[in-house]
């Protein structure tokens, strides 16, 4: 029973005496009558009472919150209820996963392109170095000959 002896919203709606052992009292205060009205209309007081009794006391508040949410959704949309929200969220997840896959594909393609460019530049640099080496090898005998010729000239002079 709620504070100051006032019956809870459920006992008020069901027109019964609200005892201290009322299972609804902690979760449906008298100020929030609309919440219990929705839950009672969709699920029924007896079903809600059974469901709350099967749940540990520490989790009953969460259970009541979820029941109120479902009842509200069912009242707003009598045909689909919460399933409409689940379907919408599932569709959103699918759409985002497709976008993520596309972004991954773009990233992989770009990385491959950059790697190919780097390999090409590396190959060009290697070819350039090899060309320099060849030039050096070809020029070395001539330089030695030139040096020997210059030394001969100096000996004569």
């Amino acid at each position, binding site marked *: 029973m709620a504070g100051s002896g006032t019956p809870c919203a459920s006992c008020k709606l069901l027109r019964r005496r609200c005892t201290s052992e009322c299972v609804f009292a902690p979760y449906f205060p008298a100020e929030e009558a609309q919440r219990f009205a929705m839950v009672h209309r969709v699920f*029924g007081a007896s079903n809600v009472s059974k469901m709350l009794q099967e749940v540990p006391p520490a989790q009953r508040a969460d*259970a009541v919150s979820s029941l109120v949410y479902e009842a509200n959704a069912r009242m707003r949309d009598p045909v689909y209820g919460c399933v409409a929200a689940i379907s919408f969220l599932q569709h959103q997840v699918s759409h*985002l996963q497709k976008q993520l896959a596309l*972004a991954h594909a773009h990233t992989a393609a770009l990385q491959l392109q950059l790697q190919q460019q780097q390999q090409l530049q590396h190959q060009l640099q290697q070819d350039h170095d090899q060309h320099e080496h060849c030039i050096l090898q070809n*020029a070395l005998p001539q330089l030695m000959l030139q040096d020997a010729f210059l030394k001969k000239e100096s000996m004569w002079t």
Partner: protein
Amino acid sequence: MDSSITRLQLADLLLPCMPCKYIRWKDLGVSSPNPAKIVRSKTGDIMPENDDDDDRPPPPPPHPAARRCAACRYLRRRCADDCVLAPFFPASRPHRYFCVHTVFGASNVARLLQSLPMAERGNAANTMAMEAYWRVQDPVYGCTGIINRLQDEIRAVQCELARTQALLAIALAAAASRQLQPPPPPPPQQDRAGGRPVVVVVRGQQQQEEEEEQSPPAPSLMDPADEYLNLDGL
């Protein structure tokens, strides 16, 4: 329960309901049905029999228990011809109605279905069956737990998408800057023997080598050791 509700699970729960197993002989077009002479096709359909034994007495009507829907069977009552729940809760799926009865109750379900047009009742029954099933699986959160998990999954995928798109933008910017700044050309080579410098120019991806003949500079007598070290003509 799995964190993500796949399309297969949703489709499985949204399968169209089978009609109540009530054989109406007049609808089959059989004048004097005889169960002993019913001919079935390969698919199990009842084929029309020959009208050559009209003098035989008609068979007794089927047992009332054989034509009850899952709801009336659970409630142990006679299933009327205009039973509201019969089209949506066949006897072949008793667990489906058990969940609905546990969560919503027979009267609430019937009242809700009666308040809807005929075209919407099938979807309403299916969604109620799904919600009831999820509530039986998770007595605390029910289908709201699935909604929370889907929202968490959406947040995770959005973060991953933002991170991937940021990396992609960085890679694109790096690629663009690399294209705008081509690699510097190598310094020109000078041939010591003929005094004809050989210039090798590498132009990015085109790989063009050009030899340009320039005016030969005046040869300078250098130390042989320095010549060997300073081969690039600088």
